[in-house]
């Protein structure tokens, strides 16, 4: 009888410890969720760290033969791989397939543009974005020249269901035009609610928004521009090598 009680009491102690561990795991999971940290992302980061990945700042994702194009008829096409890089036709864009994250930096390099129209020249980077059933959801950074009478502007915009929300998150008219024959490389650093844009390594714009905490990244061109570029990649914030 005493032996039975002893066993019961010992078992009860283990149950209490199990309950405690379960509650700690539950509280941790809920706290991470509230903080907007994906447990899956965290697990991937930890396992990647344990495997020794990314210690050499290898990209999280990089331009390749495949791009995710939107089914939204608003876009005229996706991005095509060429012999010496990539091409986006006017009003075309695509996202890096399979890539999504919270905080990262993305860089577009080797940019060349061809003005197919005297108006609405521009190109940019899409970030924390996804192609939803109704169109693009996410953010964009763009350099844009409306026409020869307007100064070139740069801005962050938000997209909801394929619709560009006005007013822009942040916009700035450049004091002098960019050299459209040798257009700048650009990169965007996405950290928490803050987005920082760079052109040829110089910080040019900073904006804040909390709508989308996570998402992928890609490239697009404006309606009057054919965009050619040599590379586009996403890297972790620990790596400072993304064309800044």
């Amino acid at each position, binding site marked *: 009888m005493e032996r039975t009680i002893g066993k019961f009491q010992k078992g009860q102690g283990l149950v209490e410890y199990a309950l405690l561990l379960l509650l700690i795991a539950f*509280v941790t999971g809920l706290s991470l969720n*509230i903080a907007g940290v994906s447990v899956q992302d965290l697990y991937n980061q930890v396992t990647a760290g344990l495997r020794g990945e990314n210690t050499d700042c290898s990209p999280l994702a990089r331009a390749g033969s495949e791009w995710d194009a939107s089914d939204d008829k608003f876009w005229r096409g996706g991005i095509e791989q060429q012999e010496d890089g990539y091409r986006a036709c006017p*009003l075309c864009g695509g996202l890096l397939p399979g890539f999504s994250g919270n905080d990262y930096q993305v860089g577009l390099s080797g940019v060349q543009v061809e003005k197919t129209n005297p108006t609405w020249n521009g190109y940019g980077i899409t970030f924390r974005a996804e192609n939803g059933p109704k169109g693009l959801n996410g953010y964009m950074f763009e350099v844009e020249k409306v026409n020869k009478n307007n100064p070139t502007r740069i801005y962050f915009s938000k997209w909801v269901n394929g*619709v560009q*929300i*006005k*007013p822009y998150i942040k916009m700035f008219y450049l004091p002098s035009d960019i050299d459209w024959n040798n257009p700048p490389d650009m990169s965007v650093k996405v950290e928490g609610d803050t987005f920082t844009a760079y052109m040829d390594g110089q910080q040019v714009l900073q904006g804040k928004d909390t*709508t989308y905490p996570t998402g992928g990244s890609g490239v697009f061109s404006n*309606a*009057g521009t054919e965009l050619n570029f040599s590379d586009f990649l996403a890297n972790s914030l620990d790596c400072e090598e993304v064309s800044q």
Partner: protein
Amino acid sequence: MSFEESPSLDLYKDGLPSRLPDPSSKRKRIWAMIIGLAILSVGLAFFNMAQDGTLAILAGTGTAIGTVYDDQGNPIVAEISVFGTTLSTQSDQAGHFKLEGIPAGQQVVVVAYRHSGREYTVNVIAGQTTEMGEARFQTDDFMNGWSQSSAQ
């Protein structure tokens, strides 16, 4: 007595202590932690539900009405949706819209026309109709490459 509750021999190295250790104190501490964590879990779960809108659904739904005008002040047929939900409707020829079944609480209503949109934060009250008033676009809203090139 379970193994975890057994006192350490160190307690008796100077003889019998005046106050014998309470064998159930460790268990009491563990239960206090369990209860504390359980209360914290409930609080966090509640906050989580409030954050992802589940609480708003449980709180009930309401209706929003309004009228949409273009940059010239003309009523337009626009698409109206609630951010983070699949709820959407279209305004009629007079620009009027009525969107039902919106989760109660602060909601962002997106009014979209020609791939440009404006956001309106609306406080939806369960079982009631909220008048959003006029949603009016501005000329700059349609200053974009696609609107201009499609008009050409």
